[in-house]
């Protein structure tokens, strides 16, 4: 498959596989999918094949797992993923008003849509377990709490003004 050069998962896979008992390497499928996505921004066909060969699964079996979980993406996402919680407490605190403001500003819908320039993906999230400081937005891997529509729009400006990151991935901070 043609695509950007990607770094091999084989090295880090050694440590990941060691977390599970002998013969239970299938348990490593989720951590490896997460790692691949952090490197490439989404789960590429090449990553699916490599994960399959590391743990002895067919590509279909790897995709079957990846497609079940909402945090795994089989297609590219925007450079920034904005997830607005629309569950109980956030709805009560105005989540739909935030979603409306973001939809209007970005010109896209909130059901996992990406802006044509690839800058932002907007999605709705189920409860993010921060109902004490609702409404909650998750921006890439970070939480923003008690957000107003105006603050959500200001966030877009801030993200737009940041220099683009190196590489396609969206790695988490490692504290």
């Amino acid at each position: 498959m043609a695509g950007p050069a990607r770094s091999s998962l084989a090295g880090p896979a050694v440590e990941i596989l060691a977390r599970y008992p002998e013969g239970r390497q299938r348990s490593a499928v989720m951590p490896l999918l997460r790692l691949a996505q952090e490197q490439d921004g989404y789960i590429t066909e090449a990553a699916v094949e490599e994960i399959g060969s590391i743990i002895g699964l067919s590509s279909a079996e790897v995709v079957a797992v990846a497609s079940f979980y909402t945090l795994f993406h089989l297609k590219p996402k925007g450079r920034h993923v904005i997830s607005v919680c629309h569950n109980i407490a956030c709805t009560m605190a105005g989540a739909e008003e935030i979603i409306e403001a973001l939809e209007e500003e970005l010109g896209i819908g909130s059901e996992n849509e990406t802006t044509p320039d690839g800058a932002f993906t907007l999605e709705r999230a189920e409860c993010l377990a921060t109902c004490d400081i609702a409404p909650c937005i998750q921006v890439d891997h970070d939480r923003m709490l008690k957000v107003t529509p105006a603050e959500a729009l200001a966030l877009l400006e801030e993200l737009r003004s940041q220099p683009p990151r190196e590489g396609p991935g969206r790695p988490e901070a490692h504290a």
Partner: protein
Amino acid sequence: MEPVCTGRYVRHPEDSFTAATAFADGAYEGLRTALTKHTPEELIDLVKASGLRGRGGAGFPTGNKWSFVPKDLYPRYLVINSDEAEPCTFKDRELIERDPHGVVEGLLIAAYAIQAHRAYIYCRGEFSLGYRRLTQAIADATARNCCGRNIMGSGFDCEVVVHRGAGAYICGEETALLDSLEGFRGQPRLRPPFPAVKGLYASPTVVNNIETVASLPHIVSKGVDWWRSMGTEQSPGPKMFSISGHVARPANYELPMGMQLGELIEVAGGVPRGREFKVCSPGGASSPWITNLDQEMSFEALAAAKTMLGSGSVVIMDETTCVVRMALVITRFFNVESCGKCTTCREGTWWLRKVLERLEAGEGRTEDVDLMFRLCEQMLPEAGAPASGRSFCVLGDSCAWALRSALRLFGDEFREHIAAGACPRGPSAIFVGSPA
């Protein structure tokens, strides 16, 4: 009441999660007592005697759960459910972020009691900070010989691994969690066999909740009588209540079980803006709603009221709340999270959502209230049947429980909605701004 599970971060709000602070605050002393003064059997008896009930939702007695592990069958696994995703529950997230050492200490006590040499923490995928704090805590505890091999020189080994989820509410169901941990799609398993006999990798497995294990160091250190001095006879001890919605100070409150709903609302600052209380979802999105402020908040009293304490998430809705919108938000959640394995849940939640969306769009039909009620009844068990309904697991039941209670309590409000072709309270009835 002195704070218990929340104590470390009440005492050290800034840096309770660091090894330096946690160790200075007495972290792992409960584990030391467990390892040096008790046999595994004695610990199981101690926790049985304490009456500790699981804090994940089902309220099953923890000591009994441990005792179901068959004798002489190894290896055994301890799996900690940190996949907290029940709407409006945010206590486990707070515990792993703010007192990860308390969690690690507690789970090692559980591992010793059931003689598991490997423990997995299944951590919700979205919990980025909690994951980092837990892995750091495990590393720091291991470096101080409080985790890993020959813990505190006791001869007991236990390796702790954090396994991250990736966005699936169903993985909070313990058998779906085990499938997910084994590297499959997270769908529930048929029981029996129960996990205690055949769980992770077909080995005896105990699955415990984060708050449950965080309670253990305190029970071991301070004893059964102290624990039982709080709460009720059948729900002893303190419990973290995640109180949210229309209260002045939404937060986690650690309180003795058995207080009244009205008292909980007062603890959280009351209903703001001089508004009247309308209804409460007392134990997660799954729980049937209640309206009586003198309701006792304990496992047994809420079960008697045909609802549940669940995970202890209490959502307060004031008089401005549109129940149709709330019902839609809850039903949509269960529909989105239905794993698709069984027809009842996959189709039932989808149809209920469709009908509610029709109401919200002003296209409700007069027969819709009865239609939804009938659909809920079809998903739930027949009268007199055992607890579980017609879905493979409790997710489908949960959707029907919550919606049926809303229809029972507020059927007229649904009908007004249908007759008006819109929310009679106005388009923004639910948007009251942030509650504080």
